[in-house]
């Protein structure tokens, strides 16, 4: 089936999320929709899938005009979607998820589960998947869950498939397998829309590329275009894709983590007997697929996990078991992975957010009252220094873009005298321009001679920043390898195995 979008426009208040978007996807074609976070890709696809209604413009399937008032209509028209956040009910089985919304029943109104199981098996077989129809979805690895999502779309005879940022949660190997599945679907004649902001993937599978920026289509590109060309189209100016940094000049081991185990509130050990050192003046990147204990590890470093054993010493000072305040006072700076939830108070102004973790200290507070004029001065200066784009220091942080919010968090931490800097997912959901800037500041922090830990699920970021790389899998460190370790080796490590030929960096 052929899909055509004509002049799709969607406004949210004064914001124009999609401005007269035209897009044609032919059967047997993989069409990449490339753009930064906030470029309007997901908004566009939500209209295609009936989750949102366009203010203007038409959707045509096989040259027939469509009106979708809900996802049910879109599905009936042959459109299937593999969502970025899987639309699977975690406590249901694979077969139950497959049948949800178009259930067949047997005598007495009983669900016809055997038929659904057969359907799962039949589609899985076509693609060489091995999926148990009776497995509970939440027990399956993320990569397999995604396959369930694909099977679900295919079971409704979808001929137009939309993949919304499908690789965000996958290991490099799983990503390769997904590409293979997409090629197979294409060979079967499906029309595929592949939404992403990762340049490498685009160049690998795309037949055609449409680039979006700030709600508009800025042009088409050929899959042969270079990364730099694609990136500059996406961002609207030329960008540096690699982080320029000198080789590190590591000093003595400064942060030492020894035998750290973290037990979560359900009684599961989520970080298991982890030991590593970080030297002053080096960046240790912690790589791994989301949910393998990285979050808990960083939280444990800052006293945010209740049940920990082992030891964490910074320049010989024991941090484990200390209060968060004590750890911050010891000179540790933290960029948490979820800035909305843990990094900022959205209703507070930029100035207030900049001193969240030292509001009780001089020079910001004297005799229990905030020194507002000093605070304003400090905020203005920091906003300039960290290139935070806002109307002023009094702007509530919640009104800033993701990139600028993240710069506020980074600025808060780096404007202190630090002895340790830990950044978790420092550029998640951040525009390319801000990524460049944040990466530069992280390298500067390293060059100032403090130990730096960067936790990231983006392999590109890990490789760009790391002097050494620790890969985590199921709460353990699989191995610590040099910063120039090849991607495929890291990929294998992210799946829990340490290749025999991997060079191990002590």
């Amino acid at each position, binding site marked *: 089936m052929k899909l055509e979008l004509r002049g799709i426009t969607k406004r949210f208040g004064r914001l124009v999320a999609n401005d007269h978007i035209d897009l044609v996807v032919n059967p047997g074609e993989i069409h990449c929709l490339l753009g930064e976070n906030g470029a309007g890709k997901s908004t566009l696809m*939500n209209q295609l*899938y009936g*989750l*949102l209604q366009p203010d203007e413009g038409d959707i045509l399937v096989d040259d027939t005009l469509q009106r979708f008032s*809900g*996802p*049910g*209509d879109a*599905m009936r028209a042959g459109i299937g*979607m593999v*969502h970025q*956040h*899987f*639309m*699977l*009910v*975690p*406590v*249901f089985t694979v077969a*139950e*998820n497959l*049948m*949800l*919304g*178009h*259930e067949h*029943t047997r005598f007495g*109104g*009983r*669900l016809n589960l055997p038929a659904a199981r057969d359907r799962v098996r039949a589609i899985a077989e076509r693609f060489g998947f091995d999926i148990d129809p009776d497995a509970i979805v*939440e*027990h*399956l*690895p*993320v990569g397999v*869950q995604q396959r369930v999502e694909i099977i*679900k779309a295919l079971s409704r005879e979808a001929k137009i498939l939309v993949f919304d940022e499908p690789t965000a*949660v996958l290991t490099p190997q799983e990503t390769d397998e997904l590409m293979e599945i997409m090629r197979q679907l294409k060979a079967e004649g499906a029309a595929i829309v592949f939404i992403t902001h990762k340049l490498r993937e685009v160049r690998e599978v795309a037949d055609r590329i449409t680039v979006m920026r700030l709600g508009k289509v800025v042009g088409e590109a050929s899959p042969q275009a270079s990364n730099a060309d694609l990136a500059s189209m996406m961002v609207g100016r030329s960008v540096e894709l690699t982080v320029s940094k000198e080789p590190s000049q590591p000093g003595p081991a400064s942060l030492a983590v020894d035998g750290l185990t973290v*037990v*979560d*509130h*359900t*009684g*599961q*050990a*989520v970080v*298991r007997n982890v030991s590593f050192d970080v030297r002053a003046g080096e960046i240790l990147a912690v790589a791994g*697929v*989301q*949910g*393998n204990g990285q*979050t808990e590890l960083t939280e444990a470093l800052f006293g945010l996990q209740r049940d920990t054993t082992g030891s964490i010493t910074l320049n010989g000072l024991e941090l484990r078991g200390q209060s968060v305040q004590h750890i911050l006072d010891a000179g540790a700076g933290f960029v948490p992975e*979820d800035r909305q*939830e843990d990094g900022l108070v959205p209703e507070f102004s930029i100035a207030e957010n900049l001193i969240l973790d030292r509001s009780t200290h001089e020079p910001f507070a004297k005799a229990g009252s905030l020194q507002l004029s000093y605070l304003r001065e400090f905020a203005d200066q920091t906003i300039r220094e960290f290139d935070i784009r806002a109307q002023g220091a009094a702007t509530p942080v919640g009104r800033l873009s993701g990139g600028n919010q993240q710069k506020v968090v980074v600025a808060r931490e780096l404007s202190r005298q630090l002895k340790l800097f830990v950044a978790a997912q420092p550029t998640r959901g951040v525009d390319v321009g801000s990524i460049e800037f944040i990466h530069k500041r992280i390298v500067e922090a390293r060059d100032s001679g403090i130990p730096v830990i960067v936790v990231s699920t983006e392999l590109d970021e890990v490789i760009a920043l790391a002097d050494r790389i620790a890969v985590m899998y*199921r*709460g353990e460190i699989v191995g610590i390898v040099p910063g120039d370790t090849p991607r495929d080796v890291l990929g294998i490590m992210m799946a829990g195995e340490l290749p025999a030929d991997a060079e191990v960096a002590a």
Partner: protein
Amino acid sequence: MTTFEAAAAAAARRGMTPRLRDWKAPIFLGAVAILAVILLIVFGRSGTSTFSFASRRTDVFSLPNLSIPVQELGLVAAATAVAMAAGSTLYVRARRKVPTWYIAVFSVVLLVAFLAWASAGHTIPLTGLLAGALALSVPLIFGAMGGVISERAGVINVAIEGQLLSGAFVSAVVASATRSAIAGLLAAMIAGVLVSFVLAAFAIKYFVDQVIVGIVLNGLVLGLTNFLYQTSLSQDAGTLNSPTQLPTIAIPGLSAVPVIGPVLFNQTIIVYLMYIAVAAVSFGLFFTRWGLRLRSVGEHPQAADTVGINVNGTRFWNVSLAGAVAGLGGAYFTLGSVGAFTEDVTSGAGYIALAAVIFGGWSPLRATLAALLFGFANELQSVLGIIGSPVPSDLLLMLPYLVTIVAVAGLVGQSRGPAASGKPYFKS
């Protein structure tokens, strides 16, 4: 973290490590065993206790009374309890969960010993005790079914109390006015649905905090029924508050079985409806389209939306259904047990039903068992009061609530409810 990431993280954790040792169960059993030793041995009583199995009706064959020497039973039971508490540590050492049957056996042994201890020198009418327990459980079970349906669909139903009370009030008035108990039953369901409509409208349409709406509704219904009771019902009790009672229907054959028969199969239609409701909810929730969709909007509404299910519509109608079920439970007070409406006739049964929902882990069958447990505790208290037990009756009055707290907080611990319960669904 998004729900998805949380699920992924949870999945990564599962199968990752064996469970850590959880000492909660042995500590709990140990504490109870110590109490048992103190009560049954230190404050041990002598004499015999008689358990009678007779009922008012003539059974096909009757079981003889059972006489138990209290002191000996107390010794044996306390010793068993201590041994079992010690034995439970073996499970924990092996990093296994203490099985439910183990705790059940432990509880039953102590319960029998406690009954014997409390009734030393008296006769315990076991059939009467069980029948009374069931009678007290009926509204709890209806309320719990209403709670399970509503919460599985993603709306916290604190308004069970209000639904019960409105059902009780309306059924009394309608059954009195029409001289038809069946009309009273239907009216009770409608009353429950009306309370649900308010809950659903505020919770689903206007995104008001569901717990607060529920509590406010309970207060509203209580105030309204008190007002109407004082201004109308108590003035003209003859026409407005003397509802026709539902007749007792004995199921041929089954009702003649000793103990079980008179307790379970010689009841009014409401009780039989309750059996049907529990069976229907248990089956429907897990094996029908209705149940699959209902659970999907309570667990992951967005996933339901993307497969074309009307999330808020599904929630609205199921909350209404929950109200109808709870309303029936209310009718039991006025048409079955109490016989007329009095102020606050439900006296907190809705909250106990809510506790049963949580104690039962949002499962219809286990919530029913929990409701039965609460009903039993309540009845035990009144029976022991009547036969004159050595425990002060004020203390016994605390029993059902004590059981509730221990059950919900101590034994269940963190149970996992529907993921989206209490969260309104906004279309993105």
